[in-house]
């Protein structure tokens, strides 16, 4: 299973990798900053991260999920710094032979991300 994990403080560019050979399913997910944070209107969210550990933990989580849900390729890009409302904070792309393992990978990864990966929303930027 090919893994690509990266971080950027710039807008996330679309994945340009060609579909992995043999893939019958490609799933992409974008988690986008919403205009309300804890009920308050914001114009942006600020994210911080422990980059080397986040990289390592994400790779470990993907590898662990991949033993039960083997996929061909998983790409994760998380943005940090100030992210305006309506822009993507996290991007995931899963290429897999069948759709089932791709859906499971996406869902389980996002659950684990929100438990174990050292990335934080450190605050909202008021409107």
């Amino acid at each position, binding site marked *: 299973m090919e893994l690509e994990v990266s971080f950027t403080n710039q807008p996330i560019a679309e994945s340009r990798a060609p579909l992995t050979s043999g893939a019958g399913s490609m799933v992409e997910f974008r988690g986008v900053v919403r205009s309300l944070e804890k009920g308050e209107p914001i114009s942006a969210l600020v994210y*911080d991260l*422990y980059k080397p*550990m*986040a990289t390592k933990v994400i790779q470990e989580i993907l590898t662990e999920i991949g033993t039960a849900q083997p996929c061909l390729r998983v790409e994760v890009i998380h943005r940090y710094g100030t992210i305006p409302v309506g822009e993507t*904070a*996290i991007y995931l792309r899963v290429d897999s032979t069948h759709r089932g393992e791709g859906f499971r990978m996406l869902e389980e990864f996002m659950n684990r991300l929100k438990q174990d990966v*050292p*990335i934080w929303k450190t605050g909202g930027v008021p409107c």
Partner: protein
Amino acid sequence: MSSVRVLFFAAARDAAGVEETAVSWDGDAPLKQDEFWQLLEVRFPAVLPLRPGLRLAKNLEYVTQSEPLFSGDEVGLIPPVSGG
């Protein structure tokens, strides 16, 4: 003389007022986590109330409370995460 590098994140960083520090102790023996917290408290008392919610990472890996610290370790204080 032994020491570990300590990194503060998110709420722990706000409480500490700095991004990182070093915690040092005499001798070569590993440091128990309780001892680590005692040393940390002296200089960063505001971090101590967060301790129940913090996970400790050693060299980029979460560790249990029984895991001692060795000189040269990088220690991260990890508040509840909120990525994605």
